[in-house]
């Protein structure tokens, strides 16, 4: 995956997260049932977004790191950012 795509997808994930945890995106998920792992649905919903963000950030980091290595190999400092 290219650096540009990885950054766009990361931005998309966090943009979507913002919408889904505030008004109005949160409304359909602001409910008690079904329980998930014993937690009310709304709480598990937030927990899932947080857990997902670890995965997204780890994947982003892999792409960013590869881009930095490649940039260094070409003799340019930094990999963007």
């Amino acid at each position, binding site marked *: 995956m290219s650096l540009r795509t990885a950054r766009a997808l990361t931005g998309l994930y966090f943009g979507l997260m913002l919408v889904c945890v505030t008004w109005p995106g949160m409304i359909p998920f602001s409910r008690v049932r079904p329980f998930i792992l014993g937690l009310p649905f709304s*709480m598990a919903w937030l927990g899932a977004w947080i857990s997902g963000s670890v995965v997204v*950030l780890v994947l982003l980091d892999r792409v*960013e790191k590869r881009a930095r290595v490649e940039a260094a190999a070409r003799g340019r400092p930094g990999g963007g950012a």
Partner: protein
Amino acid sequence: MEQWIVVSIIIAAYLLLTLSIGLMAGRRSTHSVAGYVAADRSFGLVVMYFVTGASVFSAFAFLGGPGWVYSRGAAAFYILAYGVLGMAPFYWIGPRAAKLGRRHGYVTQAQLITGRFPSRGLSALIALLSLIAFVPYVTLQMRGAGIVIESVTEGHVPIWLGSLVAYGIVIAYVLFAGAMAVGWTNTFQGVFMVVIAWTLGLYLPHRLYGGLGEMFTQIEAARPELLSPPGLSATGEPWSWGAYSTFIVVSSVGLMMWPHLFMKAFTAKDDDTLRRTVILFPTFQLFLIPIFLIGFAGVLFAGTPPAPDFILPFMILETNLPAIVVGLFCAGALSASMSTGDALLHASASVFVEDGVAQFVELDDAKQRRLMQLVVLLTGAAAYVFAQDPDSSLVLLLASAYGIISQLAPPVLAALYWRRATTAGVVAGLLAGTATAFFFWQSPSLRPFDMHEGVLALFVHVPVLIAVSLATRPQDDEHVASFFA
């Protein structure tokens, strides 16, 4: 032996241990200002991770969180939502700021901003705003420490004495050892907090209700309004979506703008360390879940604490846990309070002296360091006086401070990413934003959709920054180039 005596002994042992770790760490740091403020830029991943986690999770999360869950239910979920959103952009912002810090020798956020927008007035304004936001934040930590100690010693050690002793220790190691001590004590305290939170969060629902699902089934039957966002307001009415959502936005924007967190960019050993801290940060955020479970466990629990912020220590005492567990919990809560308090005191002194006083008076390295130590004492004393006020809620104290601190985000982003921004634009935006925040903070009934004053202020701040920048002469190409070079 009586329970409170056993508990006091455990607390005393814990405090002594913290003090010795703090003082020993300080001996490894050099005596320069860079050593005191930025720990000679030497923190590795493990220390950075716990420094960040422990300084974000404070008495606010450990006591205020369960307090909110107990009294306002799902309203507290906003705390769960904002951390990750606020931290993620730092993956890019952090290394970028760090690079500029290394090149130009910056150790504070205001130096970064005024490096791009040279103005002594701007520097002093940022120092002043940071200090205004810091005092309620430190106040909250001290009050938290006092609350814990007073409850578990059954009133034998009142709030004024408990907060005095705990913060006497914090001030001692911050004064003598600086950033190095803050780093190592936070590592120790961070580990401690996480273990205590998960243990109690899983144990209490099990012991009191026979399991998690069982607990929520009972709460759903008795108080269903507590279980879905936006929860309840302070008066027990349903809370508005406008307030819930903007609390998330303002806290996300403000989170990394806290000088004590932003300055981590200047203490990290290298950029990879910073990036990895950001990636691991959500794992610290998940630690709020057991904290919230403790608050929910209190909902149907017989008896009422003197104030919602007391719910956690109150339950710990009422469930007849062994004295050793009570003592350890207490030490965990103190960790939460002290590990944020020390970072705050340390940062407030660095900011006030570096960005305020040193802009106007010539100071050599030794004098600066001595002046910083004096400011640590003064800030501590001011917060201590406010901490004795019995009417303050831990969460609300912090939420108000976020209104001010979130106003630092536009200047930081403009300095790092927008080449056309000008000094006049940044100053105008900052003044307009702060004035708006202050106005709506004073007149809550005028806020459209019940929105947080910090978000309303950003609606004014950002357009003013852009408009005034575009209306004034662009910065010299040479200046901008040497800043970014």
